[in-house]
């Protein structure tokens, strides 16, 4: 690992000076520093900052009008603690429980999880071209091993998937992320926070220089009480998603009143599926209706040499998640 300086700010103002790379759980940053993929000269250990707590939203650092109607999760809360908290909606708890390993879940934070870097093997290998790591050097995955890569939101410059399970669940549930920088605080929908690669794959989010994630807010968590997360992977545990679906379903008298759905493992960002949601509304909560709506999910998908299986896999994972919710529906 290259040499660097480390500080441990105790106030948010001290942390957001724009000069430091933030270290929370360290499970992404320390790993990528060992690989020389990231070489920050200055690191700020932010674990002493007051960014904890899981509970009713009181507005946090910026009041978006949703205060009192959301569930706030402090950015420094650990994945394992959030996974076991009873107030957290099922889709989020399950996405966390199915992530990584117990040791990593004990270490990694919610803020860090949302900002984790892709697991694309070419991004992690400094001997290979990668536009995300070294802009303009080329994409090794396009002509290389791309079985695990994305089929949605890709470009000629990058086809890497976003690795977070949590982000998929939060995007489906319309979560917002709160940020603080030297210019003050702001709130943004998590779905708008992520950027597809286009011709600048090195830019992954709307995070500004020095900005710090302070909280995640799930608005109206009671509306996500009937939600789930289905993850398909090569191993039963401790593996990233080949495909995953987070869904929240509202069924009344056998008819879908509302659905909120996002997919993981298939997109360059957590992939909300508004077309599928629209196709489901007003339809009967049956397997055939779910399968018809799922067709919409893969419109525009662009499979690569090795990942064509993800196109039907996404449709089937989607149907499985919806069936699970429909069968468990009490109304």
């Amino acid at each position, binding site marked *: *690992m*290259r*040499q*660097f*300086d*480390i500080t*441990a700010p105790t106030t948010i103002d001290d942390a957001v000076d724009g000069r430091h790379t933030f*270290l929370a759980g*360290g*499970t992404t940053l*320390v*790993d990528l*520093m*060992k*690989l020389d993929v990231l070489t920050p000269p200055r*690191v700020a*250990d932010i*674990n002493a900052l007051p960014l904890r707590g899981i509970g009713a939203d009181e507005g946090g650092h910026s009041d978006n009008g949703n205060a009192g109607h959301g569930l706030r999760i402090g950015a420094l809360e650990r994945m*394992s603690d959030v996974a076991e908290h009873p107030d957290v909606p099922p889709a989020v708890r399950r996405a966390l429980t199915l992530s*990584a*390993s*117990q*040791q*990593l879940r*004990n*270490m990694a934070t919610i803020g860090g999880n949302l900002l984790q870097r892709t697991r694309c093997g070419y991004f992690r290998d400094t001997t290979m071209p990668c536009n995300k790591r070294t802009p303009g050097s080329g994409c090794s995955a396009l002509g290389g091993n791309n079985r695990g890569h994305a089929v949605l939101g890709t470009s000629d410059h990058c086809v890497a998937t976003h690795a977070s399970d949590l982000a998929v669940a939060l995007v489906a549930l319309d979560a917002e992320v709160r940020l603080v920088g030297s210019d003050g605080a702001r709130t943004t929908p998590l779905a708008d926070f992520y950027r597809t690669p286009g011709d600048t794959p090195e830019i992954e989010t709307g995070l500004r220089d020095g900005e710090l994630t302070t909280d995640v807010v799930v608005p109206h968590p009671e509306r996500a009480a009937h939600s789930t997360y289905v993850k398909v992977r090569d191993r*039963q*545990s*401790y593996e990233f998603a080949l495909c995953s679906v987070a869904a929240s379903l509202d069924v009344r008298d056998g008819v879908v009143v509302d659905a909120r759905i996002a997919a993981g493992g298939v997109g360059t960002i957590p992939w909300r599926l508004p077309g599928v949601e629209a196709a489901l509304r007003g339809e009967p909560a049956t397997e055939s209706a779910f399968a018809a709506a799922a067709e919409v999910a893969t419109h525009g998908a662009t499979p690569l040499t090795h990942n064509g299986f993800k196109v039907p896999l996404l449709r089937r994972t989607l149907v499985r998640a919806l069936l699970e919710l429909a069968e468990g529906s009490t109304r």
Partner: protein
Amino acid sequence: MNIALEINGTTEHLDVAPGVTLLDALRERLGVTGPKKGCDRGQCGACTVHIGGRTALSCLTLAATVTQPVTTVEGLSTPERLHPMQRAFAEHDALQCGFCTPGQIMSAVAAADRGLAEPDEIREFMSGNLCRCSAYPTIVAAVRDGASEEGRADATV
């Protein structure tokens, strides 16, 4: 930089570079070689220790950021008196080469502390501890046995 680490109940003072991991501090500076360096990338679990009572990977933890007490496999027992989980691993022959075993034991003790008894729960909780000899069936059996024995041992205190 000067840091203080509480390792197995003893406070240790060290001068380390910011990039030194807890694993290297333990093994290279303090002679605590129970935690093993397998992958050194947070993938194999051989370096598992308890930090603040929870399992963590010492290879992805910078020593300078550790503020809570650390327990390694050395902290569980004495040479004369093994921890019930260690005895269970020996009785079930839950290892072949033994390299992953200190990390397995640390996760197993945490699993027992949480009262996990079902094989599926144990497998999920322990999935971050790889065993390249693939002793998994006996590891799961040992964790179940060690957990019940730990419970009995606690009850007699």
